[in-house]
């Protein structure tokens, strides 16, 4: 993928969370104690490129840092290391005006629209607040503009004067999407946007995402733990485990020829409708705490194929086929 084609690039991005050093600890350290900060590396040294008009899926289990990476990409969090570039331009070198432009171009859709919509704003006010503030729409045209947005996401215009609690789950989720679309974004980051919906409503929202992509040339970063949804919607998948990318590649390639043992485990556990009994042989063990991740490859304590080297040395992402990257020591043995 060339750099000109890339819409958003994250290079070597790291995000850690932790308590800042207290003054007492600082003093103790100056006196010779060797106290260390307790940091959780939610995302460590990750490279992610999203090309224009591409749909990238970000997959992983709870605590793997996928939402943090989404928030970093969306600019809601500031990375502790690494750079973000938008259309090839480093964002730290941008003027405030340019940064505002990028912020409008990148919009997020969250899992629970009920929690992210202001309960005291009517539907039309929720969706028009941002474009009016940014001067994209004049307050006089509010109703007209809201109506056109509602049409885009398939909401009945009668809902314009309703409050979030008066809408059904599917309608609220459409309202969340309408709000993101209100500022003419190029790039949508969907963080588990369909996870809480019933199957029949989920189908409607997924169809809407596909229609919007076709109609407005949108680029998506689609964060989900649901592999079925990811396979259906995305062009490329990135699989994360405990803050690191373990495998990435074209969606069809990953689902056909997964390389990393973790990806294989995820795929074999993916619930699929089948008409016969299945005997479950799950991967053993828990997802380790990110506070105290295992040494070497983070997956080695649960990995059925782990060798000695896996506990000593962290594998790097290497290309194993065109566009298909995997971080596993076993590839060196082949």
């Amino acid at each position, binding site marked *: 993928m060339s750099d000109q084609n890339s819409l958003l690039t994250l290079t070597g991005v790291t995000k850690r969370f932790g308590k800042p050093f207290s003054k007492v600890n600082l003093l103790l350290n100056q006196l010779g104690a060797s106290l260390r900060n307790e940091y959780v590396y939610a995302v460590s040294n990750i490279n992610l490129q999203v090309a224009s008009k591409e749909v990238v899926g970000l997959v992983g289990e709870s605590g793997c840092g996928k939402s943090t990476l989404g928030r970093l990409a969306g600019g809601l969090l500031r990375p502790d290391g690494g750079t973000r570039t938008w259309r090839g331009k480093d964002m730290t070198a941008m003027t405030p005006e340019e940064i505002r432009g990028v912020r409008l171009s990148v919009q997020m859709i969250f899992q629970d629209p009920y929690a992210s919509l202001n309960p005291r704003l009517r539907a039309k006010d929720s969706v028009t607040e941002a474009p009016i503030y940014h001067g994209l729409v004049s307050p006089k045209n509010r109703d007209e503009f809201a109506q056109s947005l509602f049409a885009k996401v398939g909401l009945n215009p009668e809902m314009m004067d309703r409050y979030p609690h008066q809408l059904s789950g599917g309608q609220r989720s459409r309202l969340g999407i309408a709000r993101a679309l209100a500022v003419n974004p190029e790039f949508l980051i969907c963080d588990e946007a369909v996870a809480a919906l019933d199957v*029949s409503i989920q189908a409607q929202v997924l169809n809407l995402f596909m229609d919007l992509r076709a109609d407005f040339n949108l680029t998506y970063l689609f964060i989900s733990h649901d*592999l079925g949804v990811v396979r*259906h919607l995305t062009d490329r998948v990135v699989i994360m485990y405990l803050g690191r990318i373990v495998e990435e590649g074209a969606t069809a390639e990953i689902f056909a020829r997964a390389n990393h043992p973790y990806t294989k485990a995820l795929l074999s556990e993916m*619930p699929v409708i089948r008409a016969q009994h299945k*005997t479950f042989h799950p991967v053993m063990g828990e997802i380790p705490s990110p506070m105290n991740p295992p040494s070497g490859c983070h997956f080695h304590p649960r990995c059925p194929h782990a060798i000695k080297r896996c506990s000593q040395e962290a594998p790097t992402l290497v290309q194993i086929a065109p566009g298909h990257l995997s971080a596993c020591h076993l590839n060196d043995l082949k």
Partner: protein
Amino acid sequence: MNPRAHLRVENLVTEFVTRQGVVRALDEISFELHPGQIMGLVGESGSGKSLTGFSIMGLLDPPGRVSSGRITLGGKDLNLMNSEQLRRIRGNRMAMIFQDPMMTLNPVMKISAQMIETIRAHRQVSNTQALEECLQALKMVGIASPEERLNAYPHQFSGGMRQRVAIAIALLNKPDVIIADEPTTALDVTIQGQILSVIQNICRQTGTSVIWITHDLSVVSGLADQISVMYAGRIVEQGPSASVLSQPAHPYTRGLIRSVPSVNQPHKRLYQIPGMAPSLAHLPRGCAFNPRCERSSVECLEKPDFTALSPSHRLRCVHPYFEPLELDK
């Protein structure tokens, strides 16, 4: 192993008395569960699947009540029992597991205390005997070093481990029936796989039967022996899993299966069931699915009775599909 009792539910009707009138939340629910069987009870939110579980357990709160029908466990009618008799059955012959174990476990009691309490509520056993049984149950659900974990509090467990503890508690008195209400919905796929494997082994080994309540057809498809699909408080189709999934005959079941992304070709439009689920207070006349159904006709304005597709596969529809469902995958 004692022979296990079997659960039979016949024409169960549950109603709520509200200001707007009587709302019928469950309408003539019938099924039979043999020892060691797993039944998947599938439906979308508001279809009454959890309510079925509560009605069987006798856990309905007013204004809800079971207004007619029979629920029998090993031939004994649960509706005729007084609250003391029911108490002896709940947690003993029948147990329930919920979606969020943090809500059902007592946060200020050690696991051991909660488990012993469950045993002693039903049987008089010594402390050492009870502890021994707790260890057995924890081992059965795959908790590592159970001796140490017995002294832990619920918040010291991860979500998956907590759900295992909840399952272990349900198993303590070797129940005939476990009702599991969306127990893996909040868990990650690898952890969900572990829980499904635990449940599968328990049913095979102990003959306990399970009602697995879920909104996700794909979760029960590999697990359940039978599937009952609910819509607006009624069972619309039920039968052996293989039969229901490969030859769904009710338009709603077909729609549910067709709208799952993993059975469709990537990037293709998913099938959408038109419209929205109705409110139970204003159910459409006749078949509750008729306003959303592509096959509906005048006959659908009359409430459909069960018709049999095969001796074990039946459904409530006057226009069933007879051909198998062709899926892309």
